[in-house]
């Protein structure tokens, strides 16, 4: 960004949550004035702060094209991908940037997501096959319709906006939660998968913990619709409990 372009630009106030472990007991808000250019995302504003105003601000980002899933934060109370949220959306401002709700805060805008990674592994998110792997000369056949059956659930970028929006998760961090269940369904519904994830998914803290608030789906930037994945599995799990011989 050249200085001349910034000189004429309108500015907006960004209120950013700061938390330094060991120094602060709780996050404090710090204000910065940042130029708003038509194509600036909230992330560009944060980068402006980091690069020119205050080098000590910490946050995660990488791809700035909405696919790496690292830049999720709470923007004016809502969980958003900051690389895909424009500053101009907030008019005169101010814009409040806080870490994603529902997660322990490590530093400034950085939250601890290790709990989520453990959940992700717990649903066995890999293709389960029986028997030997066939030689590497041919693929398993899968028609476009069979692909379509799970495709949507494979689009999750692990940005965790859904967890942050889900009151059940915020209340009970043990809740397996939307993205992990959606991923389990991604494999359950894959025509190539022969696994069974009933034992994990039918736990109290798994699908039965969800009360269908539906906010997860509303905030999901990739249209994964985890709420649907969960309700569908509830039906599957319920039918399997009633009719123990039925599968899937």
């Amino acid at each position, binding site marked *: 960004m050249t200085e001349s372009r910034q000189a004429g630009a309108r500015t907006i106030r960004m209120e950013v949550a700061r938390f330094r472990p060991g120094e602060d007991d709780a996050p404090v808000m710090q204000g910065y004035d940042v130029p708003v250019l038509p194509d600036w995302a909230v992330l560009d504003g944060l980068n402006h702060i980091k690069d020119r105003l205050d080098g000590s601000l910490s946050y995660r980002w990488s791809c700035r094209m909405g696919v790496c899933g690292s830049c999720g934060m709470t923007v004016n109370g809502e969980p958003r991908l900051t690389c895909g949220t424009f500053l101009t959306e907030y008019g005169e401002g101010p814009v409040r940037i806080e870490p994603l709700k529902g997660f322990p*805060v490590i530093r400034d805008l950085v939250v601890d997501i290790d709990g989520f990674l453990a959940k992700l592994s717990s649903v066995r998110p890999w293709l389960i096959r029986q028997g030997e792997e066939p030689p590497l000369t041919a693929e398993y056949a899968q028609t476009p319709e069979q692909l379509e*059956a799970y495709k949507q659930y494979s689009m999750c970028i692990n940005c965790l906006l859904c967890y942050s929006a889900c009151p059940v998760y915020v209340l009970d961090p043990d809740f397996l939660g939307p993205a992990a269940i959606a991923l389990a369904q991604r494999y359950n519904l894959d025509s190539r998968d022969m696994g069974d994830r009933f034992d994990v998914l039918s736990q109290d803290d798994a699908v039965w913990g969800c009360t269908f608030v539906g906010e997860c789906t509303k905030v999901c930037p990739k249209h994964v619709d985890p709420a649907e994945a969960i309700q569908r599995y509830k039906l599957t799990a319920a039918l399997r409990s009633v009719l123990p011989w039925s599968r899937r």
Partner: protein
Amino acid sequence: MKAGEEVPPAVHRPGRDRLWFTRSRGYAVFVLRELTSVFVAWAVVFLLMLAAAVLGGRLAEFAALAARPWMVAINVVTLVATAFHAVTFLNLAPKATVVRLDGYRLPAWLIQGGNHSLWLVVSAVVAFFVLRGFG
């Protein structure tokens, strides 16, 4: 497997937000939707009272009770709440029941439309029996 975890890191764990359901429209609608269950329960109690009155030959007494203004007020609210329940519940149904025809799933609006039509038909049938029956 995750490496290097001996030091328990200092983190900030935000406290519980008691007013979370006021933080967004979505949450508020959710809570309202769930609270319709209070009125569902009340509607059932009301029907039980009605049935008891009918079977005990005390329908007139019941009618008088039901006509008290506060009773009417409660039931108007109950009507709104149960209708809200019906709309939301029938709209959400396609989430759990994904119907696939020829590999592609039926669009949600089709299932929702079907559900709402069913609702209308059932209501009409019930009204017919209650008001006229075959007699």
